[in-house]
């Protein structure tokens, strides 16, 4: 017991010192922390339940993605059959359908069946590392070609779409000017958005929940309103409903299926005001290709109406009074400043490749969060102090050592959490209390054992030595079981359970270190200095 090597003392002191240094930033206000050297800036993140803010879990609509995937392939098929070098090169096809999750069509000239397959094959790609391609092409009844997306192809399409979606959501949330949002993919088809300190989750949902697929399409002037009301429209047109609470006396418009210009050709969008009636609108600007198409179409269609369609809903369908040549336009529709701004941000950041819906939302107002922190901190301090007093009263000098170790334990937990950039949540605070309990238990075990050995008539040194060695076994086993529980919680649990597990794991390691190693160091140095023949424990 007396022999406690110098290198150990130095090593332990360094660890404890680092613990104090790296836990300090967590107690300081943000401004002060920012002025510190960068290696000292890591601090414990406060979870949204403590700091206030919004947590949203968005889920992609995979069915919608599959439909888009099919629709895109349908376009590809049509383009491929049209041929590159003029009408002679065309392959006539018919009965094209996209039902049942596959594309199927008839090749009219059977001699060209093989060539058609060749052309389509060059449109498919290898998917992931499976050796599969993203689409299977098969010939059925020697006249028909069927294209089915493969499993690997679909998985890759989902993965690509989710990556893009994540980036777009990231752009949108950042455009809100919020502080340090976290946007991460979770699982195959989900994205988690966490925005600390956010007051109004509704605006955030509005912003990121929009697919923002913008299309300019011509209104079909030949459609008979009565026929359309009964659901019958001319070939090449379709019925598109108005967005809620809007419309020119009708709930829908009959629009040409062909899209004049889509949102991909935008280079800018911002909220502004309509000079005529001072209503909020969204001003947009097209790229050069978009501008020329827009100019051409509007020049040909003066007096006719076109519609601005967002996510399959008509926003407005104004008449073209004169050709629009400058490449800029205004999207009107009954906007508020906020909703026009949200739309502008969504358009600027691009359309989501897949529809996303909020499946989980948790919002805590900053006041409630601050209240929880304050009460949590007060309760934590009171709890710690009462345990310290108990230890002092029961174990005297050894209680003092245990208390000092306990305080170091708190610093070490905070420092480790800051280093790993871990997040402290409310259940985490409870986990904190629990590890303090475990640290207390370790010292109780050691000290009780020392008492016992003294009672059996052992000498002071031997009793302390045995107290530490005999108690260590139980401490070790008890803590390993808790690490097992914490690890399983971390792997299989979600949300608050994870946050709890992180604090618990860190706390177990630091509490064993402080409760066993650090107190042992104190005791060893005291014994060496005083060499007592009896101790009060």
């Amino acid at each position: 017991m007396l022999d406690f090597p110098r290198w150990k003392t130095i090593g332990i002191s360094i660890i404890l010192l680092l613990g104090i240094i790296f836990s300090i930033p967590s107690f300081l206000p943000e401004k002060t922390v920012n002025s510190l050297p960068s290696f000292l800036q890591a601090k414990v993140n406060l979870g949204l339940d403590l700091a206030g803010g919004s947590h949203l879990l968005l889920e992609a609509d995979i069915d919608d993605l599959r439909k888009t995937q099919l629709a895109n392939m349908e376009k590809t098929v049509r383009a491929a059959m049209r041929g590159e070098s003029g009408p002679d090169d065309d392959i006539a096809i018919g009965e094209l359908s996209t039902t049942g999750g596959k594309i199927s069509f008839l090749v009219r000239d059977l001699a060209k069946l093989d060539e058609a397959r060749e052309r389509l094959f060059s449109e498919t790609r290898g998917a992931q590392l499976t050796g599969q391609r993203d689409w299977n092409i098969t010939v059925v009844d020697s006249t028909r070609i069927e294209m089915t997306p493969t499993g690997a192809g679909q998985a890759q399409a989902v993965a690509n779409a989710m990556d893009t979606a994540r980036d777009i959501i990231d752009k949108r949330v950042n455009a809100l000017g919020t502080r340090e949002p976290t946007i991460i993919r979770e699982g195959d088809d989900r994205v988690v958005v966490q925005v600390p300190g956010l007051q109004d989750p509704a605006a955030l949902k509005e912003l990121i929940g929009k697919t923002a697929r913008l299309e300019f399409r011509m209104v079909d002037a030949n459609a008979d309103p009565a026929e359309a009301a009964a659901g019958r429209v001319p070939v090449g047109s379709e019925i598109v409903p108005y967005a809620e609470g809007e419309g020119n006396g009708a709930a829908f418009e009959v629009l040409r299926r062909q899209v004049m210009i889509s949102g991909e050709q935008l280079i800018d969008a911002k909220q502004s005001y309509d000079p005529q009636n001072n209503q909020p609108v969204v001003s947009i600007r097209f790229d050069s290709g978009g501008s020329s198409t827009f100019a051409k179409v509007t020049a040909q269609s003066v007096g006719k109406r076109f519609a601005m369609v967002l996510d399959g809903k008509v926003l407005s369908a104004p008449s073209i009074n004169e050709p629009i040549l400058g490449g800029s336009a205004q999207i009107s529709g009954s906007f508020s400043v906020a909703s026009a701004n949200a739309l502008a941000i969504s358009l600027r950041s691009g359309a989501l490749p897949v529809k996303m819906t909020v499946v989980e939302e948790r919002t805590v107002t900053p006041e409630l969060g601050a209240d929880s922190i304050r009460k949590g901190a007060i309760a934590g301090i009171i709890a710690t102090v009462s345990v310290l007093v108990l230890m002092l009263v029961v174990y005297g000098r050894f209680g003092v050592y245990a208390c000092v170790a306990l305080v170091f334990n708190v610093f070490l937990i905070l420092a480790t959490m800051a280093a790993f950039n871990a997040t402290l949540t409310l259940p985490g605070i409870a986990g904190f209390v629990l590890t303090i309990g475990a640290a207390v238990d370790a010292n109780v075990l050691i000290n009780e054992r020392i008492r016992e050995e003294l009672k059996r008539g052992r000498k002071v040194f031997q009793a302390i030595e045995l107290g530490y060695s005999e108690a260590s076994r139980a401490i070790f086993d008890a803590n390993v079981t808790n690490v097992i529980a914490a690890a399983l919680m971390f792997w299989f649990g979600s949300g608050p359970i994870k946050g709890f597990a992180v604090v618990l794991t860190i706390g177990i390691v630091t509490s064993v270190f402080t409760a066993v190693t650090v107190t042992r160091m104190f005791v060893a140095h005291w014994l060496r200095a005083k060499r007592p023949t009896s101790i009060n424990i």
Partner: protein
Amino acid sequence: MRLLKLVPDDTNIDFLRWRKLASFMSFFLVAVSIALVAVKGLNLGVDFVGGQSVRVEFTQGMPPIDEIREKVGEIGLGEATIQQFGSDKAVSIRTALPDGDKSVAERAGQQLVSGIQKAFPTAKTGSVETVSGKVSGELIRTGAISLGLAILGISIYIWIRFEWQFGVGALGRLFHEVSLTFGLFAVTQMQFDLNSVAALLTIVGYSLNDTIVVYDRIRENLKKYRKMEIVPLLNLSINETLSRTVMTTVAMVLALGMLLIFGPDVIFGFTAAMLFGVFIGGYSSVLMSTPVLVWLKVGPHSFVPRTTAGIEGGERVERKDDGAVV
């Protein structure tokens, strides 16, 4: 300075005398708990049933619950569960998610908040939670899996470190603790959510801490006093660890009690469950987890080391720190 001793020296209480009574009581309580969960059910939070939950704080006196219920009913989101929230000024209002497509669910949370603000202009909405049915199903699954695996993993560890009888004892004790805690949630109708699962896992961890301390001493004594009958040996082990059990229990009760009284009301249920766990943990270490060892016939032979099998009983065997016999 004279130091405080919570437990007098050299206690010699015949705990095992009550083992039949204690076992009967434990079986009875477990049965009652299971029955309660089956009959009364758990007050599941939105984490597990889906729906939305809004925490409302009344700054100028809380209106009667019936009035709140009526006003919330007028918002048109169906039957609401209204529950006082720790302190006397806050309630949690919970409604199911309306049927229909997902975007309906998305709007409903907003509808609830604005409806409440309209009905009670002085009230503040502190937090809003909306969980869709699909996600809540997953949360139940991950919660149950993490709980089940934690119990299993721990029992396997004990089986490896000790003997199979101890593993069985620990498993039985965990089942006991978990059932009783579920029973507590059923009786009090405290909201059972993800935080409660974390609390349950903590109880599991804490109760194992206790089990291991007692089992460790039993193992030690089994090696030390090879000719002692099992019942007195268990009694001796419990008595030897009694002062530690009491001291740790007091420290934990002190810490959790402070958290319960002064802590934020958001973790009230969480802390209450843990406090309850500490109490049954104390009872279990003393009266519940040892009788199992009598029935399963643990004896010195359980630890007869292969290489030194010839050593006479009663002799103290040299040991390494990890309990292995050399």
